[in-house]
């Protein structure tokens, strides 16, 4: 005989069974969700790793700036343009982009550049100065601090700078002569270094500049090199090519003395004791820059302090940032997807600065400007404040989505690269960002690394020797 179970027993058994079944179902669901979550995380992790490698590839490949293997549209940074600007010397102006061949932009200068003694310093067909800007031997390698209290044994800047005293066509650099105005001689003596022959007196500019108002002649070799580099490649490219010790200043063509500063009255204001043009070593308030410097010497870009400083790359970049603009813009954020060549030219000559209180535009603030480029350049204006800096950062960032046509349950992963120069550092900021498709959470992995430089990228493409 088998014993039957009571109703109570049956109900308890059913209840326990339901509890167990529910617990099992919940456990299965949790396990399933955990597996799915783990898979999603694994996929995210994998995509991030792929993104990191994509960023590394871009670090060396520069495809966002010049599509070495892609469509021709991606090589628009090889272009150059002749913007509708007024120049100090009235010469034609050709401005190149960072991947422009040198010859294309330099040729724009050729008709008005001196052909012989001063040297253009660019083309191999110049027998006297058969040098290229990529040849370190062409650059002055002296000590910037040298020459005031020493015998200039590392070289005299004046020989390279080729500035002139009024009405003089040749200057002997002789430490034994008297302390004449202009101070060509080293302070503590030294030997005769030779004679700097400037050639004939230049023709002064026709408008708004009496003969007595200019002191320096422009077409020196150093002028050609630095000015030519800036015009050929923009600020970032110029500094990329400059040797680390380069003085990023030069005596510009037909610079005018103006009567509103106390240095204009002195007949000895042509050069300092090291043979450096006064123009080269003085900084000015930004508001005065345009009319004091029709050719906009580089130190104006760094007009930070009233000290008179012959700027090298150190000061030039200490308060200013120079960025590179990717050819197709910031694709992820749909920022300027296709700039015109003129726009690209403009932005490759823009500067982001932190301004100080001695500047007329206000107290310490972010400022993006390129109005030192050329007066009258289209859209040349300051953009002040944090939106200006944001704009600068957006334009100089290349961002793209890793898998644009991904399934909806995949995370969105983007890769961005920003290249800029600041504090003497060529910095490449890499970032991999991802958005979780479930939570919507956004995270970024930001890092930097050493890789191919602009000049290296140009060499990869046969644009540099």
């Amino acid at each position, binding site marked *: 005989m088998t014993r039957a179970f009571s109703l109570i027993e049956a109900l308890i058994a059913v209840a326990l069974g339901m509890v167990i079944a529910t617990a099992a179902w919940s456990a299965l669901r949790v396990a399933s969700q955990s*597996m799915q979550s*783990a*898979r999603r995380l*694994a*996929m995210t*992790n*994998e995509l991030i*790793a*792929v993104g*990191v*490698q994509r960023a*590394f590839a871009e670090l*060396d*490949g520069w495809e966002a700036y010049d599509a070495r293997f892609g469509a021709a549209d991606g090589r628009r940074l090889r272009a150059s343009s002749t913007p509708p600007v007024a120049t100090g010397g009235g010469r034609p102006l050709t401005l190149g982009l960072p991947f422009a061949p040198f010859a294309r932009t330099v040729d724009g200068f050729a008709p008005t550049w001196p052909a012989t003694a001063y040297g253009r310093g660019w083309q191999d067909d110049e027998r006297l100065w058969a040098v290229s800007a990529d040849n*370190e031997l062409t*650059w002055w*390698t002296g*000590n*910037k*601090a040298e020459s*005031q*209290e020493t015998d200039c044994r590392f070289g005299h800047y004046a020989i390279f700078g080729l500035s002139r005293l009024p009405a003089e066509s040749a200057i002997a650099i002789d430490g034994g002569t008297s*302390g004449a*105005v202009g*101070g060509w001689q080293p*302070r503590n003596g030294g030997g005769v270094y030779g004679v700097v022959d400037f050639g004939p007196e230049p023709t002064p500019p026709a408008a708004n500049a009496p003969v007595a108002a200019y002191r320096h002649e422009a077409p020196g070799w150093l002028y050609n090199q630095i000015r030519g580099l800036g015009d050929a490649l923009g600020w970032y490219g110029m500094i990329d090519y400059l*040797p*680390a*010790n380069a003085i990023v200043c030069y005596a510009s063509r037909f610079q005018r003395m103006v009567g509103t500063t*106390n*240095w204009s009255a*002195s007949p*000895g*204001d042509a050069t*300092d*004791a*090291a043979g*450096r043009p006064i123009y080269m*070593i*003085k900084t000015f308030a930004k508001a005065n820059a345009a009319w004091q410097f029709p050719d906009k010497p580089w130190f104006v870009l760094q007009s930070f302090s009233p*000290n*008179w*400083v*012959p700027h*090298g*790359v*150190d000061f030039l970049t*200490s308060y200013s940032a120079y960025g590179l603009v990717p050819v197709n813009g910031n694709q992820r954020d749909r920022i300027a997807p296709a700039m015109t060549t003129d726009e690209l030219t403009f932005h490759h000559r823009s500067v982001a600065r932190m301004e100080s209180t001695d500047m007329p535009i206000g107290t310490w603030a972010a400022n993006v400007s390129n109005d030192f480029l050329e007066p009258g350049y289209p859209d040349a204006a300051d953009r002040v404040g944090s939106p200006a800096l944001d704009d600068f950062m957006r334009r100089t960032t290349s961002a793209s989505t890793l898998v644009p046509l991904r399934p909806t349950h995949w995370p969105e992963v983007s890769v961005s690269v920003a290249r800029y120069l600041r*504090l*003497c550092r060529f910095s490449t900021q890499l970032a991999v960002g991802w958005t979780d498709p479930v939570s919507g959470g956004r995270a970024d992995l930001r890092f930097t*690394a*050493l*890789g*191919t*430089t602009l*000049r*290296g*990228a140009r*060499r*990869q493409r046969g644009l540099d020797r």
Partner: protein
Amino acid sequence: MRAGTVLIVVAGIAALLAALAIAFLASVRDGAATTEAAVRDAQARLMLHAACAYVLEAGRLGYGPSRAQAVLPANDAPGSGFVRANAGRLMHREAFGWIDAREADGASFPDPSSPGPRDQRGDPVYRPGRWPAVGGTVIGVMHRWRRPPYAILPTVAPNPIVTDPTRRGDADWGRPLQRAPAVQPAVGNGWPGGVTDAGWAAHVRGDATPVPGSTGIAWFRVHRASAATFVVTCGAGATLGFRDWDEVLAWSTIAGAVGGPAAFADDRVLFDELRSRERRMWYEIRWSGAVRPLDFRHEEALWWGRWLQNAFAYRTYPVNGTQYTGWSRANRFNPNPLGTISYIQRLDDDGSQPLDGAGGVPLPAW
């Protein structure tokens, strides 16, 4: 019957769980492999940093006493690491860059056709045909040494002033006495009584024993292609930088590590396996002797009310100098006292050359 059904159900569930677990583990393993590739990429890139720093330093520094001759020599024989100055004094051997400016006249030095680095007397600091001569190659195996050459103790205050109130009566109390050298070697030398030549030698030599866990991770290799142009190979892996098995056979030792076939258990298959898993990248870099100056100001006479009358003031601020301390005087403004790298160019493939010289000779010949 009923028991068999339960068994089948349980077995099915177990199989399902096992399949899920295996699939999960496989996907995680796949993700780990992808991550490992990214990690190796990053490690190899760190070697580009190391190689650039090595090139910058090797043009001017690093020509002191060889590790085999760490004891101060009595003469300036080649390889001693010292040169004799005019007064007969031995001077530490240094160099003046990959392109020595003193070579400009083409006649001042014994071998004007060979580019730098040269020592104070103008003699090349290398032997022809070997690194760092043009055409030479060197490998830097980047495991961590137990103690690097010339290691010093990180002691902040080797001569602390006695300020303990209970010792107020001591003669030393409150006095800044220099009883011990401010910089002391990491190797125990028993100063002041136990200083010996052997202790000095150990200090100079360091201890190249690899720190466990730091081996087989990364290396770099530099080939001097021309006077100032170098091909850098960056590697993340355990091949110690050997290009192939033939090079392994040719070199018995490399810097601070067991070289030759013994490094790979005399097993070519093992080397090939390591080689296949390794990340390698090639770059061309160019050295320039130009350095960015320290913060430099040329302060004109305007501040002193005079004009061009001996009032020019050139000022240079030493790195981390105490005068005019400020953020612009910090080290970050002078990161390149040994030259600069003009450009870095990623190469599409191996542009480097085989190791120089005959086999069996340690690579860092100097």
